[in-house]
């Protein structure tokens, strides 16, 4: 069986190259998503469904940012929507009012929210993370009010109208924008994966799990909190820009607390600290009410259906499946792994890097050879 050989190889690759495998998965996932607009053009998928899926992917980008905060760093933000909205309005302002083109509009939507996020972080992250929740909520409300009042920037409640951008001289449309969103999502998945796996990710993990341990190991906690918060804000800005380019309009009422809570629901339902889980969570929270529930008789007519759906789902997940969809997937996968004969799982030799020629019996006395490499950083 070819599968058994890849299984025994897994621990080796997880020791040395945790990235490659995941990146291939993200690329394959992206390639498959790019088939959807083709399918839609061939009539196999409704355009409205394609649009719903585009929003799922946009929300997935934003939710991945929140997962960095909530899942990896243990920080809670209630203000995501405000930053997404800011990204959307900035994109519109730079593209349609200033006519600076797609790339500069995108850049503005990435950089400016991040800078504001950084400022909020500097002020609120010094104390306890609950203050971040409060501060982020306040900022989000201030932004919301600004969106309503600042007519020259947002057109207020009348709504800001925009158009599909021109990218590399090419006029985009629904299908090409969908592909751009997919590319953005794949890049964000890769960046997130790299972030949470190396030294950066370990610092975030340690900070969440034990701030004292993190400090004792030399992690500048404030710096890493700020980092997580800025990256999350950057993703929010990106999501906002993509939202605007795809929908070509933005209304202040969109960027309310309900959206922030929905993003949290996506992370919780998908599974904290899972990249594919977050995407699945975005699908369940956003697409299921749109594509399924709203079409049901009776239930579909209930006012505020998506609110009720997210709320109930959060409670159910927290009470019964704390690991979310990711945990559910692991649960389903486990019996299959067992069937395939799981020798590699606990096999002690598999845990070693392949280039080690060390003798195996553990013990204190035999380590002299290993230590030469370890000690050379320190003068005697």
């Amino acid at each position, binding site marked *: 069986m070819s599968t058994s050989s890849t299984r025994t190889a897994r621990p080796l690759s997880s020791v040395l190259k945790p990235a490659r495998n995941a990146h291939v998965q993200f690329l394959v996932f992206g390639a498959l998503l790019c088939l959807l607009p083709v399918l839609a053009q061939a009539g196999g998928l409704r355009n409205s469904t394609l649009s719903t899926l585009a929003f799922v992917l946009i929300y997935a980008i934003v939710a991945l940012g929140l997962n960095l905060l909530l899942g990896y760093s243990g920080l809670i933000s209630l203000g995501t929507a405000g930053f997404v909205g800011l990204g959307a309005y900035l994109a519109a302002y730079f593209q349609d009012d200033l006519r600076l083109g797609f790339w500069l509009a995108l850049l503005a939507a990435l950089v400016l929210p991040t800078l504001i996020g950084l400022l909020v972080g500097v002020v609120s992250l010094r104390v306890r993370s609950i203050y971040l929740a409060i501060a982020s909520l306040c900022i989000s409300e201030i932004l919301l009010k600004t969106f309503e009042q600042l007519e020259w920037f947002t057109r207020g409640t009348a709504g800001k109208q925009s158009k599909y951008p021109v990218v590399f001289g090419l006029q985009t449309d629904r299908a090409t924008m969908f592909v751009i969103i997919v590319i953005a999502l794949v890049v964000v998945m890769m960046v997130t994966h790299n972030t949470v796996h190396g*030294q950066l990710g*370990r610092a975030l993990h340690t900070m969440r799990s034990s701030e004292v341990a993190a400090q004792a190991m030399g992690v500048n906690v404030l710096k890493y909190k700020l980092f997580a918060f800025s990256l999350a804000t950057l993703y929010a800005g990106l999501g906002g820009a993509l939202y605007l380019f795809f929908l070509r309009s933005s209304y202040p009422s969109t960027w309310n607390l309900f959206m922030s809570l929905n993003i949290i629901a996506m992370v919780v339902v998908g599974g904290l600290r899972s990249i594919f889980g977050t995407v699945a969570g975005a699908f369940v929270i956003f697409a299921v009410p749109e594509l399924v529930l709203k079409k049901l008789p009776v239930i579909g007519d209930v006012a505020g259906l998506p609110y009720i759906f997210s709320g109930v789902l959060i409670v159910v997940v927290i009470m019964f499946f704390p690991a979310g969809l990711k945990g559910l997937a692991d649960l389903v996968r486990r019996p299959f792994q067992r069937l395939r004969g799981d020798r590699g799982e606990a096999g002690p030799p598999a845990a070693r890097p392949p280039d080690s020629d060390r003798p195996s019996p553990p013990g204190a006395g035999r380590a002299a050879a290993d230590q030469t490499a370890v*000690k050379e950083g320190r003068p005697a």
Partner: protein
Amino acid sequence: MSQRAVLSIDHLSISFGGLKALDDLSFTIFDQEIFGLIGPNGAGKTTVFNCVTQFYRPDAGDVFLTVDQSRLPSRDRHLADQLGQARLNLVGRPVHSIIKLGLARTFQNVEVVKELSLLDNVLVGGHVDFQATMAEQIFRLPRARREEKVYRAKAMAALDFLGIGRLADQLAGGQPYGVLKKLEMARTLMAQPRLIILDEPAAGLNDFETEDLAQTIRAIRDQYGCAVWLVEHDMRLVMNVCERICAISFGKFLALGAPAEIQGDKLVQEAYLGEQE
């Protein structure tokens, strides 16, 4: 054993509310020494550790650490002597800057990341050694990849050294207490410290594991060339492994000397008798 000081505690005092947790405490730990700090429950042992590693800011007193040239922060470089070493006062420095100076610690209540593998937990101990910038890591540029590889091998060596290398890939959550204690030690080794602080390393271990621990502590000193300072209630371990011991009670200095001297000391015996009554 050289008699050069690696850490000097100088008239250290700290109070919590009305309680004087440390009262004018002074002692010195030498290079490559195995040093014990003992005292009844609540004597202030963990508080000393916390004052040294700057988790607590002492009300009075200083803590001097001998720091190698390669680890000196640039603004302290002028303090180096002809051997390239300098005695830095730790008091007032940020907590996260301490390990970089060559002082690493474990915690009385094991503090590891349950959701990470043992190997990743150890790698956290090498945090300050990573040179790659955040951007290099986010885009997984060559330097970040290269460093990750080097330090993974080094972390693996530390785990092997403590005899838990075969568990490297397993999650820390759910491991037995003895493994977690070793994991914390491996994590300190990763920093190549000049002094390791162990807060009750034998707590929760059985007799066999404690015997193993004594050997491990000696091996750490011999192989990594660092001093080890431990707080411990298990007197057999302390007397067996420590070269010098300091006893304190209610934050006050009682006695300092070789194990036999401490065992025979009147004040120390009284302090411990008082505890048992």
